[in-house]
């Protein structure tokens, strides 16, 4: 009987423990098949809890971080009152959000209206399951990692379109349509950049993409291919910002013109879920950038054995999250610095600049592999 297994120390531990605990059961219901199924279910439960913990736990931290970064860019201090330097402010906000009454506007398509926030949340959760957080820390080590990520990213735009359309509000509909046009356009460059990564690493599995960057810091994909790597990284940064609907590409929300865009009519928990999805997407996109360009969980070795020994002592998860938070900080600085382009400028930028540059980059990458690889 086929039972999918989870290959890491935690999985082994569970597989070892379950038969031992099963010995206390009556002998008539003991069997190896049952044990392996129970072990699998326990492991699966641990995986689900881990993904939820990373995602839901990171959202309040990121909201706090965003408020602080934004405040310091604007010469302010940000939340300071609740807890040390306002650290528990976001928890208070979350509680407030959860205890609010939930209602839909009259004329709204109730089913779609409440389904949309859930659909938006699907994509970041699945992507999070694919990301290798450490040598043994990956929930689903599938061989088609990158195509799967590209595929599930479509859920984001579906959720936003549904939310906007079912709200029965002109602003929501406008925001949703804009975001549909934007996300579908930028998905192309997003995919192309991931294709570039797949091309140079020769694999679509995120684990082997990471392990392909083993060595010193110059073996990371961003530096391994001279100039092209950095250009690809910048293009990835731009298209993933657009993909996440973050400023400066937040025309779907566009507070000043659309009063919040697709989530104008949402409040309470559904609104919190849109918010959550936005921040989890930030984590997963940063994690993707880290995996594809910044060496994932590998330490930034510099080729000097003495320093590298110390760097290797730090567990991979720590490096991974350090890099992820650096990426998130970059996204935040960009958000609070740049201005939002107009809708037509946004489309011009994608179709007249990003896409041609991407195609040139792909050709150059292929040429590099042929010549030097």
């Amino acid at each position, binding site marked *: 009987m086929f039972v999918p297994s989870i290959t890491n120390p935690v999985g082994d531990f569970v597989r070892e423990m379950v038969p031992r605990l099963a010995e206390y059961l009556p002998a008539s219901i003991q069997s190896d098949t049952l044990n392996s199924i129970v072990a699998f279910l326990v492991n699966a439960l641990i995986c689900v809890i881990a993904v939820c913990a990373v995602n839901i736990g990171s959202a309040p931290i990121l909201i706090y971080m965003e408020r602080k*970064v934004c*405040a310091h860019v*604007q*010469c302010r*201090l940000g939340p300071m009152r609740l807890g040390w330097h306002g650290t528990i402010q976001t928890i208070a906000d979350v509680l407030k959000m959860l205890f609010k009454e939930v209602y839909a506007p009259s004329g709204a398509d109730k089913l779609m209206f409440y389904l949309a926030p859930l659909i938006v949340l699907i994509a970041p959760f699945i992507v999070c399951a694919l990301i290798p957080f450490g040598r043994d820390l990956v929930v689903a080590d599938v061989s088609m990692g990158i195509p799967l990520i590209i595929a599930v990213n479509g859920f984001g735009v579906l959720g936003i379109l549904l939310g906007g359309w079912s709200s029965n509000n002109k602003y929501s509909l406008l925001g949703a349509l804009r975001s549909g046009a934007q996300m579908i356009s930028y998905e192309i460059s997003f995919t192309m950049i991931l294709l570039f990564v797949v091309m140079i690493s020769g694999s679509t599995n995120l684990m082997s993409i990471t392990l392909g960057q083993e060595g010193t810091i110059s073996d990371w994909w961003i530096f391994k291919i001279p100039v092209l790597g950095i250009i690809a990284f910048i293009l990835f940064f731009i298209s993933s910002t657009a993909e996440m609907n973050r400023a400066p590409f937040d025309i779907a929300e566009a507070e000043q013109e659309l009063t919040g865009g697709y989530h104008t009519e949402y409040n309470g928990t559904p609104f919190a879920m849109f918010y959550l999805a936005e921040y989890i997407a930030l984590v997963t996109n940063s994690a993707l950038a880290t995996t594809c360009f910044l060496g994932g969980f590998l330490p930034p070795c510099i080729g000097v054995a003495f320093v590298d020994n110390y760097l290797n002592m730090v567990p991979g998860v720590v490096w991974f999250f350090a890099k992820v938070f650096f990426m998130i900080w970059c996204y935040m600085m960009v958000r*609070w*610095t740049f201005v939002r382009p107009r809708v037509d400028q946004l489309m011009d930028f994608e179709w007249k600049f990003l896409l041609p540059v991407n195609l040139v980059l792909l050709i150059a990458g292929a040429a590099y592999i042929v010549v030097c690889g």
Partner: protein
Amino acid sequence: MQENITLLQYFKRYFKRCITGPWSLMCGLSVSLKYFFDPRRIVTEQYPENRKTLRMHPRYRGRLEMIEDADGNNHCTACGMCERACPNASINVLSTKNIAGKKVLGRYVYHFASCTQCGLCVEACPFGAIRMNQDFEVATTDPNTLEMILNKKEGQG
């Protein structure tokens, strides 16, 4: 919508923008990085905690006050320009006559409750006799304290 340009001009413009655009974005980013990493630029005051050390900005307009020297003498001539400049009649300059029969300031009545701290009276005064001070903790539970007489000495000048 678009002007007629040749293809060559179009591409020249396109590539020029490819350089100038990122450059201007980098300039913007450098400014916000500077702000982010420099804690001295923060202007937020932690008010109730730093009450002892808090200094108001010099251009802050608080309550109106009369500029007086150590003996309590002021420069007011009771000309009434401030009274006329005030958009909401918060000032009443009550003049009187001194022994020589000259018009001098009797009482300078100031209604703080209706004053909007606009500072027009200070601008209007030809003798520089009044200014806005830096008081900002001006809340009170007794409305009678909001009617005040600004000059300490009567009948001088």
